[in-house]
């Protein structure tokens, strides 16, 4: 049901590097799960509102008052590659 091409496409969207073996196994596993899940596709649910929020709340917000920010040392303490106060990462490739 889920082809290898689709698995590769979804893995790209999810930024997951899968080995060839994982891709193949994933295709089978996802197909099995979706086969079960697909039963809901047969239900006639026209006119039913989807639940996007479980709690019946509206207008929850906070006043526009500053809180204490993290000390930049703390902010960078866990960074895999801190550089002069910033978070360093390899560059994205596609830039105009």
């Amino acid at each position: 049901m889920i082809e290898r091409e689709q698995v590769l496409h979804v893995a790209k969207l999810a930024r997951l590097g899968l080995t060839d073996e994982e891709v193949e196994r994933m295709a089978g596993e996802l197909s099995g799960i979706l086969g079960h899940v697909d039963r809901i596709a047969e239900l006639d649910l026209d006119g039913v509102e989807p639940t996007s929020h479980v709690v019946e709340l509206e207008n929850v917000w906070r006043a526009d008052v500053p809180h204490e920010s993290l000390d930049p040392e703390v902010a960078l303490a866990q960074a895999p590659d801190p550089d002069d106060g910033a978070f360093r990462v390899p560059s994205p490739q596609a830039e105009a």
Partner: protein
Amino acid sequence: MSDVLALTALQAHEAMVAGDLDAGEYAATWREAAAADELNAYLWRDEDGGAGAIAVERPCIAPVAVKDIFCTEGVPTTAGSRILEGYRPPYTSTAVRRLLEAGAPVLGKTNMDEFAMGSSNENSAYGPVLNPWDRGRVPGGSSGGSAAVVAGGLAPWSIGTDTGGSIRQPAALCGIVGLKPTYGAISRYGMIAFASSLDQCGPLTRDVSDAALLLGILQGADPCDSTSVGLPEAPRLPDREDLSGLRFAVPADLARDAIEPGVRELFEATLATIERLGGEIAETSLPHAEHGISAYYVIAPAEASSNLARYDGVRYGMRAESAGDVIEMYEATRAQGFGAEVKRRVMLGTYALSSGYYDAYYGQAQKVRTKIAADFTAAFSEYDFVVTPTSPSVAFGLGEKTEDPLAMYLNDFFTVPMSLAGIPAISIPAGLAEPAGGGPRLPVGFQIAAPAFAEQKLLDAAYALEQGIGFDAGPSGAPYAGIGHKKRTGVGGEEDG
């Protein structure tokens, strides 16, 4: 010393308040007990005492084991994953902060299925947790560690999280009490997110009274969590004598063949106990509940795929070595940092949200959810509670269900509908039963679900039933034996009865 460990958290609390028990010594005793962990239940223990401690005058609350999904400032927090190995949060979750402010020390961080995805605690990057009743079997999941420490005498009580059954199912498999409160009762701030619209913090305890005590400390609206409302009133300790005047409904649709005979027998026996206590049993219909697994295994992975996207090696946590551009860094980090089950769900969730599939999967699943919630509302217009077995089987063997993800997912069959509807549900031990394949008897859980925000009513009924059942077993070597038939009395003293 072991006498102290036999006290429930409530008994210990009352003793500390009365001045009969020293809080510091009591906590130290528990730290020593926790150090004897042979179940791989703890990922981190507070060895010296004082982890994240807030100075409290006259502390009188028992130390708590905390699922390693709750951020605790300066303390390792991994969510059972390699991708957060070594991560120490710069802040503390609201749930843990409330514990600390109440004077409850954090005993340690418990092992769990990676990012709360699993029903057996076999998906942890740090090894599986063993069930104290039979170390060849799983404790359930994803709060397997939190359940095992309570059942195994390594903590007086603990907190876990429940997204589709992850508190209730391990509680059932370990013979203890597990409560998933109403969605919004306890703040999610600082609780590493799996599925935002389903995740809830809850207590795992030896008995219902402890669950009520712990719930009281944790619940409340939090300005840091826009979806939190707390409970309408602070829970009080339950004290119902019997179940007269209460109506319990069994959903006919959930009477599946997949339930083990031993589990089914105990379920029926518990229904008889309810009647003996004056409660009324009836049959009801939850026509869409059978689609709960399908809806859940679309919604939860979809939200998870988005919640876990931040684990990208940029700002904290693991970053894989890679020579390429940032995309290659992301792909390598996530490939190495996530386990197989997490990858599976991230893929499933990404697919369900992707262009062309949203309406058929995510959109449709959210409609099924609406219907399930409506089914419960209809049932509650006639009945006080809906009851089911918590899990279709007793604890299964390590490695028994790991080959087929779908088989593993079906463990959540009875617990998922309540999560989708956002209503509270508790699992209490119903007794011991022989597994389908034969062997020594293992714990079975009985689940009671109530309308949203009816925690007090739920706890009162669960307490009365718990006393009626009189579950008095514990794993061998545990410092206690079930909740016994102890009726809660005043300070000091227990009575048989």
